[in-house]
């Protein structure tokens, strides 16, 4: 455990200028801010997202009482937006977690194990990659009743391949390093070498890969919800909000615009965070060993 937390800690203590990094800071601000928002949604949101309004309040433009307007049924858009963040982040994180766990396991086994295992796993990975992801997702989701859980699982099961390749490549390179040879020379089992020595050194790569994938997972979820295959009523998702608002772009522009902006901002935040982390880790990894 000491090794794993060390990896994360190193990200932020290796040089104390991370707060000034032009990518890391906004990325962290956005992602942490959104995280907080999602967490405290019931407290922050102005009112109940499902509360129907009276006739007069329907499709009202942004105003003092409804900061981002109301929708067809008189529901407050801001409240719905805030609650929708929960869905987006939940799906984003869980699906990435599934994909990363699966991908890392496959990649590590392929990179560290015997050749035949590597070939088998990589052929499997290539087979999965041959399918266009979105179609695969649509197919799987439409086979049964749509639900959030289904979306998360399916996104995870179709997103692990990239991570597997990345991890495998890193593992192959780490495998040649002297300290791995030393670990083998000490008679450590293959499992111990892979999990105790190679994996902790892979973590930065994995963390960066995960962070960058959250953005695209959130986009994928919005896409599915837009098609009606994601979150179902009364659960509110940004994608479904856009779907409801798309027929009213002239009369009720606020219905689709704000969720759209929210998605864009979230994805931007995660991309900045991921890029910022990647820049910290790669050049550092090259530099630090150099001082002899």
């Amino acid at each position, binding site marked *: 455990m000491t090794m794993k937390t060390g990896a994360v800690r190193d990200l932020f203590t290796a040089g104390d200028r991370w707060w000034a990094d032009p990518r890391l800071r906004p990325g962290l601000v956005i992602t942490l801010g959104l995280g907080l928002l999602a967490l405290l949604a019931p407290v922050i949101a102005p009112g109940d997202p499902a509360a129907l309004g009276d006739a007069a309040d329907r499709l009202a433009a942004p105003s003092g009482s409804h900061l981002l307007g109301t929708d067809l049924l008189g529901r407050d858009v801001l409240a719905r937006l805030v609650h929708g963040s929960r869905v987006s982040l939940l799906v984003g994180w869980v699906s990435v977690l599934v994909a990363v766990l699966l991908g890392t396991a496959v990649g590590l086994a392929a990179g560290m194990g015997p050749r035949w295992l590597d070939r088998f796993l990589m052929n499997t990975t290539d087979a999965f990659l041959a399918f266009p992801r979105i179609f695969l997702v649509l197919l799987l989701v439409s086979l049964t009743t749509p639900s959030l859980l289904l979306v998360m699982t399916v996104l995870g099961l179709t997103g692990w391949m990239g991570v597997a390749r990345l991890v495998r490549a890193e593992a192959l390179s780490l495998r040649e390093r002297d300290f791995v040879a030393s670990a083998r020379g*000490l008679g450590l089992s293959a499992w111990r070498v892979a999990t105790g020595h190679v994996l902790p050194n892979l*973590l930065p790569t994995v963390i960066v890969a995960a962070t960058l994938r959250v953005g695209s997972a959130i986009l994928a979820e919005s896409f599915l919800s837009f098609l009606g295959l994601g979150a179902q009523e009364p659960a509110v998702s940004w994608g479904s909000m856009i779907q409801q608002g798309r027929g009213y772009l002239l009369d009720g522009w606020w219905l689709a615009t704000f969720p759209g902006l929210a998605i864009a901002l979230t994805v931007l935040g995660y991309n900045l965070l991921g890029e910022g982390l990647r820049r910290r880790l790669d050049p550092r990894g090259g530099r*630090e060993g150099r001082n*002899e």
Partner: protein
Amino acid sequence: MSDLLRVENLHVSFPGHGPGREAKVLAGVDLVIGQGEAVALVGPSGCGKSLLTRALLGLLPGDAAWTGTILWRGEHLRDPRARNWRQVRGRGMALVLQEPQTSLNPVLAIGDQIAETVRAHSGVSRREARSRAVSLLAEMLVPDPAEKANCYPHQLSGGMRQRVLLAAAMACDPDLLIADEPTTALDVTVQREILALINRIRRDRGMALLFITHDAELVPLVATRRAEMSGGRIVAEFDLDLPADKAEVQDTPSGESSAGVSTPQSKKMNPVLKARNLVVRYGAGMMVRGSLPQRTGAPVDGVDIDLIPGRALGLAGESGCGKTTLARALSRHLVAVGGTLELEGEDFLATRGSRLRHRRRRVQMLFQDPAGSLNPRQIIGRALSEAAGRDDQAQVADLLAEVGLSGELAGRYPHELSGGQRQRVSLARCLAADPRVLIADEPTSALDRESRNRILSLLEKAMARRGLALLLISHDFGVLHSICDRVDVMYGGVIVESYRVAERSRIRHPYTLSMMASTPASLNRAQRWWSDAGNDPQKFRGPSPVGCPLAGQCHLRKSHCLIELPPLVEVAEGHYLRCPEVGQSGPSHFIDTL
């Protein structure tokens, strides 16, 4: 007053010290280099030499802060982005670094890379830049420059790559060449070639040189002035007499007396690790052996090794001769395809599975690169207890004490330690497994003199205390002669000579002699012998594929040398030689100095 470069009171510092930052600072450096002068800058690792070069070129990392004065031809250099400094880089000052591999772009042909430098500083056409690149390569004594210009970096040897870097540096005819450890990563023979080349270029072009090294032996070969750096400052400066043609260098750290070797005189004990006719091959290529004794071109091509407890065996040879492959085969990191290997009487080649994991702890390996041999994410104490197999804090402290390190290092990460300390921790980790055999693969080449001597004495002590058998691999005969009892010299996958260090005056194989001729300490007399015989020690090429590996270049060769591999014969008691041509004519008159 023809000062080219004048540095006054240069301070460089980095903000914020976390647990990962060693304090790297320059604390008031004063340096003057005149037109055409050659200055050597020596100092231990971490003293700030490389930082100084970066500061001179205005290439400090973004978070560094510096104060002081840097004058180039009387003009102040202040802002790294300003045009005057940019022009100075490349045209005024050129930089050549230590690692030729990483300084070259792997996906571009070298001719293109040099041409790129030419075009960056003068607006000539692409074709003209290319032909200039070829003529630069020719100037750097690269054979077949036109052809080589189309090669990629990975197709060239280390020495060749360094010549490419020099060619690129010379592209704009700089007034000052800054060479930061340009030969540290190279073999001894190639090292001399590159140094001679630098000298020549300097004289031909009237160029000034700032030569940075941690190896004091090289200084007199290239410099007229020597500046010593320590703790971020230049602490002493000496003028030297003109280099190269003078008598032998006086301070020969690697030639230190071997009188102190105190390996216990064990009687003819049974070897703990025994290899007979070991063959290691990469890939699936099968070469056919004829009826005559042949080499097959494999990296290890029929080698016998005996490792005896309490004794140290040295393995000498240039890189690429198969030493490291042999080491990995002996420690079972690679599997030999031919021959036998016995560990404590048991067939080591046939061992596998959990028995292998158990047995291999008996053979531990100490690697060359201190930075790569420790898991960067593992705390030292945990690494040691993992190696020992038990979580015993007392044992960890003992191990650290055994290698002369304080117990408080147990809580640190590898990057918080210096290179010498890391090497010692690696040694401690090897010892933690309680081995019978220790294989040290060039453990000292990446270290400065102090750390080197320390490691060697630690190895000796460990051998004595634990009854270890040591295999020490190095291209530096000084290192080998200081602690080994016997040295095997390897070339082209076979052992060409094996001698007792105490009787090293008997060395006579041409390859061994030429390797010694390249060691700066023995410069003159060995060089004279070798060149008297018509050989140029600077023109050392790779081993011949068939017959005696030296056949292609040996002045004593006969026709059978090219066809048949001579057998290893005991020419005197305890002295084995693989060359029937070298009779009693032994150049023993210079070996005494080693």
